């Protein structure tokens, strides 16, 4: 029952982030929706490998006897977070450039093709 609540809340957060991305008229709110989606995904990826009663996978003896959490999803999340940083920075750079060119950040004003 606890696992259903936990995973269900994370999936709800992902779907709400998708809704923010698709339904907003401000360009910065689109980038915020992208941020909510990536945060939900990273938390989900880390929490897959939780072992009950386990510690962090950093050891000081060569032969360890305690249980440890799964280290593979943590390594995957490290890469994912750095890629999300690069994506958000590029998206915000495009928003600033669009503001300089058209003078507004409403998405309604950026739909016309100029010739």
């Amino acid at each position, binding site marked *: 029952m606890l696992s259903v609540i936990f995973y269900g809340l994370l999936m709800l957060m992902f779907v709400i982030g998708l809704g923010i991305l698709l339904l907003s008229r401000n360009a910065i709110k689109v980038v915020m929706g992208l941020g909510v989606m990536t945060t939900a995904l990273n938390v989900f990826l880390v929490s897959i490998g939780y072992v009950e009663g386990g510690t*962090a996978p950093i050891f000081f003896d*060569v032969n360890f006897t305690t249980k440890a959490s799964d280290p593979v999803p943590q390594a995957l999340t*490290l890469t994912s*977070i750095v890629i999300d*940083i690069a994506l958000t920075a590029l998206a915000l750079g495009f928003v600033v450039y669009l503001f300089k060119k058209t003078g507004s950040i409403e998405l309604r004003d950026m739909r016309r093709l100029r010739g």
Partner: protein
Amino acid sequence: MTIVADKTARVLYPFILVFGAYVIIHGHLTPGGGFQGGVAIIGAAALVYLAMGIRAFHRYVSLSSLTIADSLGALLFLLWAFLGLVYTGYFFGDFVGKLWGDGVFRSLLSSGVIALMNISVGIKVLGGAGEMVVALIKGVESHA
């Protein structure tokens, strides 16, 4: 900003740099590593701009050294990989363990080529994120 924030940032700036370097260099012993330490050092640059103004930022941070650090980190990372191909038969192979043996466990010189790759990735993230911060500040300042 106010003079309290100015003097506090002036005192805190070297401590943040030392903390970031500690997280990078001890990447194979404590939680952290190259990426986390590089971003922690860039926090110091952002603090300098926010608390001390644009003139102090141009005095503390120079764009050319950040660009050199970015390219140097990427080339060093590839250099360790190709040296692993030369000395052992594998790309990213552990050539430090083959040439000089294993170090003392839990010391700074253990774990072979992983410590060298940590430091080069730390330098690369430092240069890259610093370049993004400098570009953003230059874009903000040229408009207003």
